[in-house]
């Protein structure tokens, strides 16, 4: 799975996600990333894209839960992403990337690694695989 989340200078958030699925998946299986609210979600506060085992990400309604924790509990982006990755999905199943409308970003995973990269207007630039 690949994905990208972006917030532009106007504070508009967008999430995009694309996948080939999972090796040896059953023909006709749907459900890694294209379920809006699960592996891909965005609202006025944030944008989220997930990777990993789609079924776990759907059960945890991962993307929407990040947005809901921010909207209804007032959590920061980083806290909301960590809450979902650590407590709302099964261990070893999920990686999340996210941005907020104010320009923060977060990357978290409960697998051994996640191919990822990030940059922001303040000059942060990062490419990483493991913790």
């Amino acid at each position, binding site marked *: *799975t*690949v994905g*990208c*989340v*972006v*917030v*532009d*200078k*106007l504070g*508009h958030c*967008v*999430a*995009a*996600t*694309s*996948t*080939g*699925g*999972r*090796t*040896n998946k*059953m*023909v*006709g*299986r*749907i459900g890694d*990333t*294209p*379920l*809006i609210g699960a*592996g*891909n979600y*965005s609202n006025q506060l944030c*944008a989220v*894209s997930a*990777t*990993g085992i789609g079924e776990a990400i759907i059960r945890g309604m991962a993307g929407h839960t990040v947005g809901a924790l921010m909207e209804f509990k007032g959590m920061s982006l980083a806290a909301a992403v960590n809450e979902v990755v650590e407590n709302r999905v099964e261990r*070893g*199943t999920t990686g999340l990337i*996210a*941005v907020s*409308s104010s*320009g923060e*970003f*977060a990357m978290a*995973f409960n*697998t*051994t*690694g*996640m*191919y*990822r*990269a*990030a*940059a922001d*207007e*303040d000059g942060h630039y990062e*490419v990483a*695989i*493991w913790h």
Partner: protein
Amino acid sequence: MGKWAIVLHGGAGVISKSMPPEKKEEVERALAHCLDLGVTALKGSSSAMDVAELVVRALEDNPLFNAGRGSVLTTHGTIEMEASIMNGCTKQCGAVSGLTTVVNPISLARLVMEKTPHIYLAFAGAEAFARQQGVPTAETEYFMTDKSIDQLKAVQSKEEASCMAALKQETGPDVFCGELADKPFSGE
């Protein structure tokens, strides 16, 4: 004016730390290339929507990653791709599943969002919509790689071995080899 930021991922799972240095560098170069595309576009005042699509298209075009070219295979050795995109300001979104020929599924997902009254198209309907919109398509061979073929063979041989072992242990008549093959997760 606010601050821009961009994050991308190329998959998660069990990624061995003993990965050969040249492979690690190849992946990191590819991730940096895609990130640079997005950063340049954001500095040029492109919209978040355009940048997200641009970057995911670049990731789809790279056979290192499991999307578009380089997609993994189903139990039948076929390709079935999925993609989705969502605009946080408007809550507009689009998604596609079961694509077999579309070179950049993310762009078709955006077309579903912008050109239809719907959110989600799948399988034959999604393919027909792709033809109607004239998006680039390719034969199956374009999407398959030696790596994806080897991965499928490895998983299926493991499935057979796991199933046989379970049957030998007399676990009962309800042994479902597909479930056994499901574990452990080795990532994307």
